[in-house]
């Protein structure tokens, strides 16, 4: 871990990865060196058991008792593509929110661009009121809407959407709900059995502090999507198809065993600290930063009451990319630009250059926040 850096880019990937994550990933190389679900020797069996245990850990995190419905993926984008393209139907509509990441927007756009009998609608999720957002979603539904893809928390401003209410509306209208929980896992409690989405997708490497190159999708019992990638999966090898059983049906090729074991350790780590405890600490730092930035004259975008610890801001007259570069020279890691969410930036009206994003994690401290503010005041006083 680099002790000199202040890392405020946890929405991109969580850092530092806990020691246990690194240790478990290494254990995969040493003790689980076989290919899970392929061979009968001890290394393959060990790998298969370790991967299964990680499916169980995902279930424990989200209160769901079907580990066989947990699919591991390369990242959230991969998981979302599996879900969206596996569930989309011809001659139908898809609804997404105005705060979606390109990992939702682009596959939906591509599907509808290639299939002219499909369409998608975007509803405004930028309002402060949850009731207004839920109502906007309801109004966006058409008679042929079959799938909705919604982020649980925005990657640019942290706004937590009313997904429980939206899920209820989906069930009333026979719509399959795919949730992108990449910014929510490890940041806020999530109860799969209470919210009842059709699919929950997430990155493994952000709030769960797993290695980059990990993600997952969790499917409810009544959902049986078609695979979007075919290949070897250790299942009924004599057949030309992927078989019918999850998870193997949707996991073509060798899974990332070191990554998955690291992810499992990340889940254990987050649960040992307590999601609520992480949230409380990060919220306090976030509130301090927001107040101080406002007093510096910063424009804060999407300052919602219910949010994860993300702040999106601009300093009038300063280019966000120049500001982020200047902060980097001071050892402070942020991200500037559109953050893979052109829809979100348009909804929040940040402008064509986007904004600077600060996103907190378990390791951030009040002292780091004070150093950041001190540096910001210097920059505002002296220029970039």
């Amino acid at each position, binding site marked *: 871990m680099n002790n000199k850096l202040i890392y405020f880019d946890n929405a991109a990937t969580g850092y530092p990865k806990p020691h246990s994550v690194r240790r478990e990933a290494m254990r995969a190389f040493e003790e689980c060196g076989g290919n*899970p*679900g392929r061979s*009968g020797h001890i290394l393959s069996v060990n790998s*298969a*058991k370790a991967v299964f245990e990680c499916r169980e850990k995902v279930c424990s995190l989200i209160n769901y008792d079907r*580990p*066989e419905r947990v699919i591991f993926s390369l990242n959230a984008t991969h998981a979302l593509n599996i879900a969206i393209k596996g569930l989309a139907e011809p001659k139908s509509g898809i609804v997404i929110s105005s705060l979606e990441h390109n990992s939702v927007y682009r596959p939906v756009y591509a599907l509808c661009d290639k299939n002219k009998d499909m369409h998608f609608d975007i509803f405004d999720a930028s309002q402060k009121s949850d009731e207004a957002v839920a109502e906007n979603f309801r109004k966006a539904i058409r008679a042929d809407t079959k799938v909705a893809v919604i982020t649980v928390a925005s990657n640019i401003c942290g706004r937590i959407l009313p997904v429980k209410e939206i899920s209820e509306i989906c069930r009333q209208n026979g719509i399959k709900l795919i949730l992108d929980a990449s910014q929510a896992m490890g940041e806020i409690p999530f109860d799969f059995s209470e919210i009842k989405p059709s699919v929950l997708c997430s990155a493994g490497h952000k709030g769960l502090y797993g290695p980059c190159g990990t993600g997952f999708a969790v499917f409810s019992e009544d959902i049986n999507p078609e695979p979007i990638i075919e290949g070897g999966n250790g*299942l009924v090898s004599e057949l030309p198809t992927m078989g019918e059983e999850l998870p*193997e049906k949707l996991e073509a090729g060798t899974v990332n065993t070191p990554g998955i074991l690291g992810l499992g350790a990340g889940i254990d780590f987050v649960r040992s600290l307590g999601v609520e405890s992480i949230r409380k600490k990060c919220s306090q730092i976030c509130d301090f930063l927001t107040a101080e930035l406002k007093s510096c004259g910063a424009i804060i975008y999407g300052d919602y009451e219910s949010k994860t610890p993300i702040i999106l801001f601009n300093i009038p007259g300063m280019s966000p990319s120049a500001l982020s570069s200047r902060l980097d020279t001071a050892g402070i890691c942020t991200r500037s630009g559109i953050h893979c969410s052109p829809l979100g930036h348009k909804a929040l009206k940040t402008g064509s250059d986007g904004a600077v994003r600060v996103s907190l994690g378990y390791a951030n401290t009040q002292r780091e926040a004070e150093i950041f503010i001190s540096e910001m005041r210097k920059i505002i006083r002296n220029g970039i």
Partner: protein
Amino acid sequence: MSYNIIIFSSVTYALKAQGIFEREGIKSRLEKLRKEKSLHGCGYGLKVKNSDVIRAKLVSERERIKIIDILDYN
């Protein structure tokens, strides 16, 4: 002592069953099936004592884990 091998549709289901069997006091061992026995499913099964097979079947039914076949181990 005689054993049976319970064949499941995938290694994931075999592992799920193994965990549940363990909680029920049924010992089992995950094994890759030999080719001549691997006509169905994933080619993995759980080796259990013959005396535990009926209980294993009932537990699997209760937990909605599909058993593809049950064969003599040898």
